[in-house]
């Protein structure tokens, strides 16, 4: 059977596309540098000093990454690195631009003798994390070797991970559990998904995501024959055997449970999509997707019954009708939404008592569930302000949106770059995902196929969940926007993800090793 992968390989032998990659990288750098220049010109009428620090820094890193890729993975997909650099650069420019505004607040706070705003845009930090992220990319490309050379020294390839499937699954679970551990876990913005390591906060979920892909891929490759063939028929759906489905279900349910406890619904949704999609790729059976969706429905139903999960209902309510919740609203048992915002008497009452969160306290007295849609609405206002062409970088007021530099950075970009800019960003993401999928199709090894497919899909799904959330396509859940959002964990994990794809695409696209036995046969070498 000549699969699509074989066809693609047949069309893509011996192709090194490093020149194209280099040209695209230059383009990505030009894009980033003009973004910095525009910020400076619009705000102060001159090229900002930051251009040289940030742009220069990013350029050095990007070209270093390029040379490593050209030398050690010369057949790699030419688009992946430049696309990721472009996203990282645009995100950095936006954070730099937001930092210029928040730094004024910081100065004012410092002058007033108050503690600095902890939750603010931090461009130098982001530059550092970009450094670390691209460093990890370089390291990963260097460490991971061609699949064929498993006997070489330092024989670590993407396929090596298959050997440690269960260990990696365990690691994913432990990483997810860490934020619950008292002492190192930290709750930021309502979700307990952080751990503190000295001065740094790390979001282990970002790395768990990658590990979980490996675990699913490893497990499913082993079991997929059994899972897709053996099973009892129950009507139109054939059910799998418990021993095939068991371990994966246990781990998956465990992860979802942990995420629900951490109120990290975005990641839970991500893991769910990951599970279903990989199951489908492995078994090619739609019935699995049905079972997955059925399990989700049951899970959501149970979740809404739990008293502490009332805010799932509310998120959906806010998604459908955010206006009553602006600046705070209280959902009563009757289903009515009562405003509980700084204008209301009950809010003032608790404000006067010095309650830390008057809205919550006031709503508790009313016997309802408190929430606030101001973030979402303000994000949408930013998008509305941007319109089709945007205000131009540095000329909007993106700082008006809370978390404009992390969860809502897509809306911030929408304000200043407009619909036009957002279309480009979405296209860049879509291209990365599609190149990843292409890598999966081209890969020779089933494990690598699943791995690449899973990794690409999870990246696309993450963009969908967060961007869909901040544009009110789906209910809002917190997730980072890959490469754009401020934050080290996200950048590191996503750069590793790109490194894995680069390595695998090199593997898939490089010429097959010459078969020594078939010396007599003519080998056709394309001569460009």
């Amino acid at each position, binding site marked *: 059977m000549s699969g699509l992968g074989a066809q693609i390989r047949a069309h893509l032998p011996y192709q090194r596309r490093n020149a194209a990659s280099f040209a695209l990288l230059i383009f990505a750098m030009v894009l980033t540098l003009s973004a910095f220049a525009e910020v400076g010109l619009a705000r102060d009428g001159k090229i900002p000093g930051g251009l040289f620090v940030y742009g220069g820094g990013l350029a050095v890193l990007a070209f270093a990454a390029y040379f490593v890729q050209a030398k050690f993975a010369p057949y790699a997909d030419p688009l992946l690195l430049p696309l990721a650099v472009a996203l990282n650069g645009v995100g950095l420019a936006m954070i730099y631009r937001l930092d210029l505004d928040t730094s004024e607040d910081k100065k004012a706070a410092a002058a007033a003798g108050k503690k600095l705003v902890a939750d603010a845009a931090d461009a130098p930090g982001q530059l550092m994390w970009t450094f670390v992220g691209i460093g990890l990319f370089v390291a990963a490309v260097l460490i991971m070797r061609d699949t064929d050379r498993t006997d070489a020294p330092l024989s670590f390839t993407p396929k090596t991970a298959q050997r440690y499937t269960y260990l990696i699954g365990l690691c994913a679970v432990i990483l997810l559990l860490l934020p619950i551990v008292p002492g190192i876990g930290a709750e930021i913005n309502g979700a307990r998904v952080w751990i503190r390591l000295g001065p740094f906060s790390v979001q282990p979920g970002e790395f768990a995501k990658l590990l979980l892909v490996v675990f699913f891929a490893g497990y499913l490759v082993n079991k997929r024959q059994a899972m897709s063939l053996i099973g009892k028929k129950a009507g139109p759906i054939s059910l799998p055997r418990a021993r095939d489905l068991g371990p994966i279900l246990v781990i998956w349910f465990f992860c979802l449970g942990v995420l629900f406890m951490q109120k990290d619904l975005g990641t839970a949704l991500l893991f769910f999509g990951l599970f279903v999609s990989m199951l489908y790729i492995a078994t090619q059976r739609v019935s699995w997707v049905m079972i997955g969706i059925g399990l989700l429905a049951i899970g959501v139903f149970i979740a809404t019954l739990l008293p502490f999960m009332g805010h799932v209902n509310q998120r959906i309510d806010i998604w459908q009708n955010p206006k009553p919740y602006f600046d705070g609203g209280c959902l009563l048992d009757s289903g009515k939404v009562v405003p509980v915002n700084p204008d209301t008497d009950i809010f003032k009452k608790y404000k006067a008592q010095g309650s830390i969160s008057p809205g919550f306290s006031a709503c508790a007295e009313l016997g309802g569930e408190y929430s606030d849609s101001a973030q979402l609405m303000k994000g*949408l*206002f930013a*998008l509305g*302000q*941007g319109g089709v062409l945007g205000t131009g970088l540095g000329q909007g007021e993106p700082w008006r949106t809370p978390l404009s530099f992390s969860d809502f950075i897509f809306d911030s970009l929408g304000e200043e770059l407009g619909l036009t800019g957002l279309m480009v960003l*979405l296209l860049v993401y879509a291209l990365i995902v599609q190149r990843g999928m292409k890598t999966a*199709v081209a890969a020779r090894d089933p494990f690598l196929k699943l791995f690449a497919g899973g990794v690409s899909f999870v990246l696309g799904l993450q963009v*969908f969940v967060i961007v869909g959330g901040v*544009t009110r396509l789906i209910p809002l859940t917190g997730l980072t926007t890959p490469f754009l959002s401020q934050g080290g964990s996200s950048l590191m994990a996503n750069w590793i993800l790109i490194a894995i794809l680069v390595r695998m695409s090199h593997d898939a696209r490089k010429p097959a090793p010459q078969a020594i036995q078939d010396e007599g046969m003519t080998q056709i070498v394309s001569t460009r």
Partner: protein
Amino acid sequence: MNMDKPIRRVAIFGLLLFFGLMAQVNYVQGSQAEDLRTDPNNSRQYSDLFNSPRGTISAGGVVLVTSQETGKDNPKYGRSYKDGPIFAPVTGYFNGNATQVERAYNSLLGGKDKRITQQRWFDTFIGKKAEGANLELSINTEAQRVAYQRLRAQTQEGRRGGAVVMDIKTGAIQVAASWPSFDPNEVAPQAGEKGAKRLQELDGARGVLKPLVDNALSQTFPPGSSFKAVTSAVGMERLNLSSSTTVNTGQLILPESGRPLPNSHDSGSCAGQAPLKGAFAESCNTSFAKMALDLGIQQLHQGAEKFGFGKRVTLEPDMYAAKSDVPLTTQDASGKTIPTGGDATARSGIGQQDVRATPLQMAMVAAAIANKGKIMNPYVVQKVRAKDQSELYNASPKQYAQAMSADHAAQLADMMRAVVSEGTAKNLQGRNIAGKTGTAEQGAPIPNSRWFVGFGPVENPRYAFAVITEGPGDGATNAGPVAADIMAAVLRK
């Protein structure tokens, strides 16, 4: 077994997710953008206004309203009103929302008007915000101050007063003063949260005192006897009366109730019979009530419309005075429509019953009399200049209406002169104004609305005025001197 097919399907599904996102972004930033921008919760629409300085408003070389930097990020620019309460009836306030001139000329003041942006298209192109244009008002600042002080002094505690002076040849408003007033500085952008509260407080002020509603252009009062000028004008035209026609000034029995309508006095011209001029000068109620009955409410209503009753007078694009009215029907408390009957028609003829007029409207009546029947359209903005001093707008006087014939106007002007020389306003002799007194009873316990409506100078008039104060007493003693003082200030220049 090959996994390419499911991978391809998942790849397509991934693409569909991105199409979904693209469609949503298009929907939000394309079709919903306008709704989002104008959403009441969206603070951007207001903050945007405060990011660049707004134009100044000046009058007669005195700068009344300026914008200056607050030193804060939001609002970046505040608004400062010099002698705010005095000029508020014209300038209005601005805090994102706006009233009066601040509202009517919002786009020019804020630099968003096409006349500015087209001139500065290059600035717009490079993203530099156009600066707001400066307004010059037609207000006579000195007279406006006098008006404010005198209204305050003459109005009963807790009641209202208003004054309007307009140029009869151009329609330029010289004075538009109101008591009580408010200070727009208190609600200007820099006042922030506090300003919003103050605005609410002003808006919800108790009783009749609505400081935000000025009593010169935006409030109506029963005009009382000053309305006899309108009744006379309509009578002259439709009943072929002249100032010398002898009219009945004796007692009048109202047609429906059979009750007599009293005069303030039954001596002099009001003793039984007198020429119209005498009845006007001494303000005999019965003659004008009879005239209204002869005309019928329909004709009185239509006649008054020629002066501007029955519709809002447009001073500037998007700046209107309140509607004065001689109603044909009224609604009672339960919302039932009641046609204006015979008794009511008689009382309407003397500016009572449900007749209502703004000081501006009564000044327009006086202007018609002083200007050969012609009313010029009132306006308050004389000139608009861009920051580079180029002229963007210059008021061009337009005729509002020909309310009566020149002959009738001349006769009425004489009748008004007689009011001061020999009639109810003899106390104003030597003040170089002519006019008609009015004292409308508003029913106990509400004090009278006291009017003096007229023009000055007595010969070759140039300005028409209307003054109202509320309190006990009558128009001649409680509104006349106020008008005389204001006119002295107007004519001084």
